[in-house]
């Protein structure tokens, strides 16, 4: 392989005509090798196994498929999963922006530490987050024992699911908004102030529009992650059918009853939704790049 690439390399320099049929203009060797390996590995790890899911669905008739994905218990799980994910992403949108703002614009002791800590949900395994949040919010936990006398119970309720999903999604918003805020040109804000805008007006009319694409990207990423989340949620949710049972848990439940076809049908619904969310995120990121690249 080394010989082949070096031959291609020398060819590219001395005699472009011999550099290979595929890419006469490419100076760097290794395109065929790396692209080939990427496609091969992508196929065996991701694409072929995912296609197994699609093919398995075809063993169902349309009626069976529809019955599996629209059973009342499954419908309730969609409502819960998407509702809780949306609420959590919304909370993350607000507080993620606030944290990114504070980290970029202000100086305070321990800022580096706080900045590093934002990524904790990326690094802490979800099962650990799950049992730890449950321990905090249970009636004898640090937070639970404060809330219980007030009549608020969060653990083993849908509200607990939202809390777990807030934990999981927070870094997405902070980490997408932070670099955009760092790159924002202060001159624009100075100009706005010179033209008589109040600070709040500057924020809503100048700063907010420039970070909206990043903010929405972070929101969509947090939402997408929350929809598929399993590990942190099942410990805190209580997992009552119709009330606090998330869609991934429905799939697990069907698998445990050897209902592979039913599990696959619900999984396909989740997969299609992930695809759509991925496309939305890609479109938002493209918008963000255009936004950043546009002349000010």
């Amino acid at each position, binding site marked *: 392989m*080394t010989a082949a*690439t070096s031959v*291609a*390399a020398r060819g590219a320099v001395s005699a472009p005509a011999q550099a290979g049929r595929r890419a006469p203009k*490419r*100076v*760097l*060797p*290794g*395109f065929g090798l*790396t*692209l080939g*390996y*990427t496609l091969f*590995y*992508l196929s065996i*790890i*991701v*694409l072929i196994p*995912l296609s197994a*899911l699609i093919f398995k669905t075809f063993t169902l008739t349309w009626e069976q498929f529809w019955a599996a994905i629209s059973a009342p218990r499954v419908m309730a799980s969609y409502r819960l999963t998407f509702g809780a994910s949306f609420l959590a992403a919304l909370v993350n949108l607000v507080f993620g922006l606030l*944290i990114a*703002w504070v980290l970029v*614009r*202000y100086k305070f002791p321990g800022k*580096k530490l706080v*900045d*590093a800590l*934002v*990524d904790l949900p*990326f*690094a*802490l*395994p979800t*099962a*650990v987050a799950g*049992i*730890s949040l449950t*321990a905090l919010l249970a009636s004898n*936990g*640090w937070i639970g024992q404060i809330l219980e006398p007030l009549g608020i119970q969060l653990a083993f309720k849908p509200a607990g699911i939202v*809390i777990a999903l807030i*934990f999981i999604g927070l870094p997405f918003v902070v980490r997408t908004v932070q670099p955009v805020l760092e790159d924002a040109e*202060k001159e624009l*804000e*100075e100009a706005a*102030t*010179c033209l008589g805008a109040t*600070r709040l007006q500057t924020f809503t009319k100048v700063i907010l529009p420039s970070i909206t694409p990043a903010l929405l990207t972070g929101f969509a990423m947090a939402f*997408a992650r929350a*929809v598929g989340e*399993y*590990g942190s949620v099942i*410990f805190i949710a209580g997992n009552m059918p119709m009330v606090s049972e998330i869609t991934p848990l429905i*799939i697990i439940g069907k698998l445990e009853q050897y209902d*592979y076809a039913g599990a696959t049908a619900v*999984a396909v619904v989740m997969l299609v939704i992930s695809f759509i*969310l*991925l496309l939305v*995120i890609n479109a938002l990121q493209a918008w963000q790049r255009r936004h950043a690249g546009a002349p000010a």
Partner: protein
Amino acid sequence: MSGNNSRTIRRARAGTTEAPWVRYTLIAIALAFMLLFLVLPLAAVFAEALRKGFGAYLEGLREPDAWSAIKLTLITALIAVPLNLVFGVAAAWCIAKYEFKGKAFLTTLVDLPFSVSPVVAGLIYVLMFGAQGWFGPWLQAHDIKIIFAVPGIVLATVFVTFPFIARELIPLMQAQGNDEEQAAIVLGATGWQTFWYVTLPNIKWGLLYGVILCNARAMGEFGAVSVVSGHIRGQTNTIPLHVEILYNEYQSVAAFAAASLLALLALVTLVIKTIAEHRNEQALKAAAELPPERPAPAGV
């Protein structure tokens, strides 16, 4: 005139920040939110693990099942991370260094495992290799176990950690461009030499950053692994699954003791990540400050 000017400047400066009380309130809210949602859960892991003293904590870790879970977790990460490392470098090389049709689509496909629910990730391997799956009968005939065995756990882990390294490297290598590699090739280096002596030193911190995140996820993955593992004690339990079993058996101290190992891993990950990120930024800044080798043609 000049007094007027400086007043305008002062006003403009003031216009880019907030009144002190606003600043302190915002900082306080942000810190309180992080304390509540990030610090407390982390602290609770250690507090619960040490609730009955250090002896009980060690007792929880000394169980043979815990030890086999630790071993399995290490083996899984040792296989999954290098596999995704090789893939990540290859994918980043072809996506960042070349222009070709379908590049955007390929990048999307590389990111795909991030948006697939871990439970679905586990399910697809059950459908491939499970008893009723595509290869199930063949595997059974040859007495090979993938699902409810170690290979399935490794496969599911590889899937969920698939994009981590590629994703770190692609933007980094795109930002660095091809100039240095092209120079090496023109000076007669082979492709491998160029990679080892030119590209690798440039991307090493980004690479480390990707590896460390990939490793954290590989060791901590729960949903996907839980579907394919079969939860056989002492055989197919990784640390997160071990934590779940203990927790469901109300062995709280032992569960949190095992969880504390993963929490420590998370903390180490954050430290290395912070260092790697810092070095990476410095490297990028140094690259940006280098004088251009070739003066750009006028008008560009």
